[in-house]
């Protein structure tokens, strides 16, 4: 069989090369001998016959080479030859190889890591059936101005009645749930209440047991619970006996009907319990707790669904005059899970890391060009020995691709470390971080990138080398002046590009860094040091504490026990905490102020706090009095407002004695008299500018779930175990959750800006390092090349300072050009950062001045070392240098 025979010879040519070669040699020599014999039989003398046969036969080596050319596997063989040659060349010059591989490893590694992050978060298919068709529906209206806000049950029913775009719209609410029961210590977990269609909409079947049946969101349905795989393993020992068992959810019994696989991470990444939301027919509007999730009907596009929802929104507004400017917003499931800030940040970071790779490539190209000069003679020699130029280019490209792959392999290790680092930096904050991993896609990306970079930085030097002028090169002893001048210009241009690109990255990192420092400098509105404040969320569990009298008595006990713990300076209660753990927000009205037509009641934070709260956190009392133990249930209702409240809603008039009330639907005519003014506190996050708030006394506005706030004399974390013990000694059924210091809470609230800033700063740092290596290499090389010239200059009387000036000027010129180009680029590109900045403008002058200064310093340092070395050149040695 021809195919088999070809395969066999292919294998022989590759793996039994010595035997194949020996056979060829034997065969050809036998032929030559045979020919010689014939000549002798024809009557020639022995030497004549030998000579004639040789002439007839032709060159032995040429014939062999001709035969080798037709062998199968020739291309592969040449490729392996190039590879061996390339590896040998790299080994011969380990310094070059190490620097190049390191530069590439940094570039490719950072890119592979970032690719994994971007792919995992933005592209990897979500683990739900046909996830592109899933959408989340939000409601936005004034006065409650949340872009991705919630709706109430009445709104849902209206949506469902008028819906054509979606299959079976479902409703969900994310909330904290206290889970207790026979199985162990009560704990608080992330939970969700969902309607019956929720699981079938997402298309996730239960791991064991079942999901909700179609009628299990009716008003009369029993309370049911589904567990995540994680809580099932943690609390129930992964036993299937859990099915049918009754657990306590927020103090009420619910029957476990199923366990959901880890793949289900909705509505939140850490949701561990789902209970059935029962659709009790609403008698009024509110509460606004819910968002919708639904699957698009076949053939319906997201835009069509949006326009249908626009119509439904208009009808909702007509039916309820409380709603102003209402819109129903629909987002694809991925966008809903990611939120609005992460995607642009990841795209910016991916762009930045691409620039880092660009710098690495430029750097290695520069090294290759420098080496090309050294290898000029090798190339010329090979050309003159008959190698074709195409063959030389192929060989040099094989070498650079080999280098690229070595860099990629080293980069893979870096990428792996980088991804682990990102996980550590982001304990649970980045959504979809679980789908970030180094996998086949990342590996393919890395290999592709390595080969691409290998070709990129190899092509120009390879073509240049193969174009070498044979005569000039060999005659001039390896120094063709014109070629090397052209090459120096190319190398200078590359270094200028490096400086420009790293400046752009540095400016971007500088902006984020400045913004982050500003963010860290924002006061939460309290004066006590954040590491001295410990907060614990208390859920009493037992429903008897829902009663105000029992509850108040319980919390008096909690405070008494807490204050007895050594190291506790103050203990207080609140339902809201800075920086972003606000409790409620609602509309309110001020007595005597009537709204102009079309205007609406504002919504602001309303906080329930006990008398000690302001003192414990160090929130300054500016006017009037704080709450006191006399503000009881039976006393006249009072309120305290913030400074921002007075400025924004009272026109800075005297606030004490004015009356306000909560004005949303369902609130009565319960006027509260303002008795004091306190400083502003950031309940909506550090980045929210004005945050007016009003406070109501705990005794007059009781709620069962409260934060205990403790001020410690030292490090507050040490108090946690003692406090836990004390509080649970009151009632072991109490759930304690979110135990953290204010310091930790502040850290978590800025974790995404911190993530963005650290990554971009890291990338800019790598870029700067690479650029410094690049310019150092260029200058050092040019000094080495100009040794002769410098020697002459010094022999003719130039002093050391003049020589240093000359070398440094070369570097400074390149830096100046690079900085001008880089600043222009930065002005254009930093606009992309606008949404990521806080407190500074994208053209922040401080950044735009200090980043170029930093670059200039680094460049001058990188230039100065070779410049100094040049002054140590002795004229005598230099002139003999040839």
């Amino acid at each position, binding site marked *: 069989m*021809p195919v088999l025979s070809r395969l066999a010879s292919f294998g022989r040519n590759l793996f039994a090369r010595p035997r194949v070669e020996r056979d060829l040699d034997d*065969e050809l020599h036998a032929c030559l001998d045979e020919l010689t014999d014939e000549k002798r039989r024809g009557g020639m003398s022995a030497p004549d016959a030998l000579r004639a046969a040789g002439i007839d036969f032709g060159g032995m080596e040429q014939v062999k080479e*001709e035969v080798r050319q037709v062998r199968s596997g020739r291309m592969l063989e040449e490729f392996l030859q190039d590879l061996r040659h390339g590896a040998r060349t790299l080994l011969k010059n380990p310094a070059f190889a190490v620097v190049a591989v390191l530069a590439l490893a940094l570039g490719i590694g950072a890119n592979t890591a970032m690719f994994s992050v971007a792919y995992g978060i933005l592209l990897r298919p979500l683990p739900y059936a046909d996830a592109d068709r899933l959408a989340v529906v939000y409601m936005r209206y004034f006065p409650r101005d949340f872009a991705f806000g919630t709706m109430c049950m009445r709104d849902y029913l209206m949506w469902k009645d008028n819906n054509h775009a979606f299959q079976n719209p479902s409703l969900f609410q994310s909330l904290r749930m206290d889970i207790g029961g026979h199985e162990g210590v009560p704990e608080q977990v992330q939970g969700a209440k969902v309607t019956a269609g929720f699981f079938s909409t997402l298309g996730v079947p239960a791991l064991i047991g079942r999901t909700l049946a179609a009628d299990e969101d009716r008003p009369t349905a029993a309370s049911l619970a589904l567990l995540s795989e994680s809580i099932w393993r943690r609390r129930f020992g992964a036993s299937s006996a859990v099915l049918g068992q009754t657990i306590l959810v927020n103090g009420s019994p619910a029957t476990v009907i199923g366990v959901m696989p880890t793949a289900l991470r909705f509505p939140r990444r850490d949701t561990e319990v789902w209970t059935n939301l029962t659709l009790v027919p609403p008698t009024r509007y509110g509460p606004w707790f819910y968002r919708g999730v639904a699957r698009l009907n076949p053939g319906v596009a997201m835009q069509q669904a949006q326009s249908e929802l626009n119509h439904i929104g208009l009808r909702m507004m007509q039916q309820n005059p409380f709603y102003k400017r209402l819109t129903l917003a629909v987002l694809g499931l991925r966008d809903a899970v990611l939120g609005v800030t992460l995607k642009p940040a990841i795209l910016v970071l991916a762009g930045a890391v691409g620039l880092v790779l660009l710098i690495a490539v430029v750097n290695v190209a520069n090294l290759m060009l420098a080496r090309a000069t050294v290898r000029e003679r090798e190339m010329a020699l090979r050309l003159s020995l008959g190698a074709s130029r195409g063959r030389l280019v192929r060989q040099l490209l094989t070498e650079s691709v080999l280098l690229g792959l070595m860099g990629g392999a080293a980069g893979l290790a870096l990428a792996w470390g980088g991804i682990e680092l990102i996980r550590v930096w982001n304990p649970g904050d980045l959504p979809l971080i679980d789908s970030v991993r180094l996998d086949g896609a990342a590996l393919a990306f890395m290999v592709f990138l390595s080969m691409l970079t290998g070709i990129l930085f190899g092509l120009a030097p390879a073509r240049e080398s193969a174009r070498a002028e044979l005569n000039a090169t060999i005659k001039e002893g390896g120094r063709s002046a014109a070629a090397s001048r052209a090459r120096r210009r190319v190398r200078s241009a590359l270094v200028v590009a490096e400086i420009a690109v790293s400046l752009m990255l540095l400016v971007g990192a500088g902006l984020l860094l400045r913004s982050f420092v500003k963010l860290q400098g924002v006061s939460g509105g309290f004066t006590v040091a954040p590491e001295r404040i410990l907060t614990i969320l208390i859920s009493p569990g037992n429903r008897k504490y829902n009663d105000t009298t029992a509850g108040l008595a319980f919390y008096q006990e909690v405070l008494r026990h807490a204050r007895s713990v050594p190291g506790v300076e103050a203990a207080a209660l609140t339902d809201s905490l800075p920086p972003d753990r606000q409790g409620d927000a609602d509309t309110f009205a001020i007595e005597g102020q009537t709204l102009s037509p079309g205007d609406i009641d504002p919504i602001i934070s309303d906080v329930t706090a006990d008398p000690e709260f302001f003192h414990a956190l160090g929130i300054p009392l500016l006017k009037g009095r704080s709450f006191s133990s006399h503000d009881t249930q039976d006393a006249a209702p009072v309120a305290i407002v913030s400074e921002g409240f007075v400025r924004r809603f009272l026109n800075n008039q005297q606030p004490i004695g004015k009356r306000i009330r909560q004005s949303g639907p369902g609130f009565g005519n319960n006027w509260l008299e303002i008795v004091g003014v306190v400083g502003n506190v950031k309940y909506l996050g550090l980045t929210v500018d004005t945050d007016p708030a009003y406070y109501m006394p705990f005794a007059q506005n009781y709620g069962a779930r409260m934060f205990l706030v403790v001020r410690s004399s030292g490090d507050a974390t040490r108090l946690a175990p003692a406090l836990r013990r004390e509080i649970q000694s009151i009632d072991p059924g109490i759930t304690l959750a979110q135990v953290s210091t204010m310091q930790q809470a502040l850290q978590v609230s800025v974790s995404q800006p911190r993530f963005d800033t650290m990554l971009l700063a890291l990338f800019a740092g790598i870029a700067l390092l690479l650029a410094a290596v690049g310019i150092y290499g260029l200058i050092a090389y040019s000094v080495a090349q100009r040794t002769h010239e410098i020697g002459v200059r010094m022999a003719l009387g130039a002093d050391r300072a003049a020589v240093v000036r000359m070398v440094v000027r070369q570097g400074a010129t390149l830096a100046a050009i690079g900085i001008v180009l880089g600043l222009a680029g930065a002005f254009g590109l930093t606009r992309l950062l606008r949404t990521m900045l806080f407190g500074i403008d994208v053209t922040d002058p401080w950044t735009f001045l200090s980043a170029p200064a930093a670059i200039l310093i680094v460049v001058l340092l990188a230039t100065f070392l070779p410049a100094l070395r040049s002054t140590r050149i002795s004229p005598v040695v230099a002139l003999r240098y040839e």
Partner: protein
Amino acid sequence: MPATNLLQGTLDLLILKALALTEMHGLAISHRIAQMTGGTFQVKPGSLFPALHRMEEAGWLSAAWGESENNRRARFYRLTAAGRRQLKSETEQWETIALAIASALQAS
């Protein structure tokens, strides 16, 4: 006598034809071709051996070491079944072309 430049296809056909009756070593093939063509085709080793190796890899020829008529070790080539089929089809092809060209040249 000047040797005519051989077209590659012609060389293959001539080698196949030379080996049609018996196995031969390289030099003998070269002599046989010269003899068959009345000396018109003188195949040099530089063309002969690459062709032989190429045809061997294609599976038309097989080779084995043997003894030459002068008691020297030599590599003998012989046609395989595939080689015979190749000879047949190349012969037919050649005859078609030769006929066509002959009639083209005879046309007035």
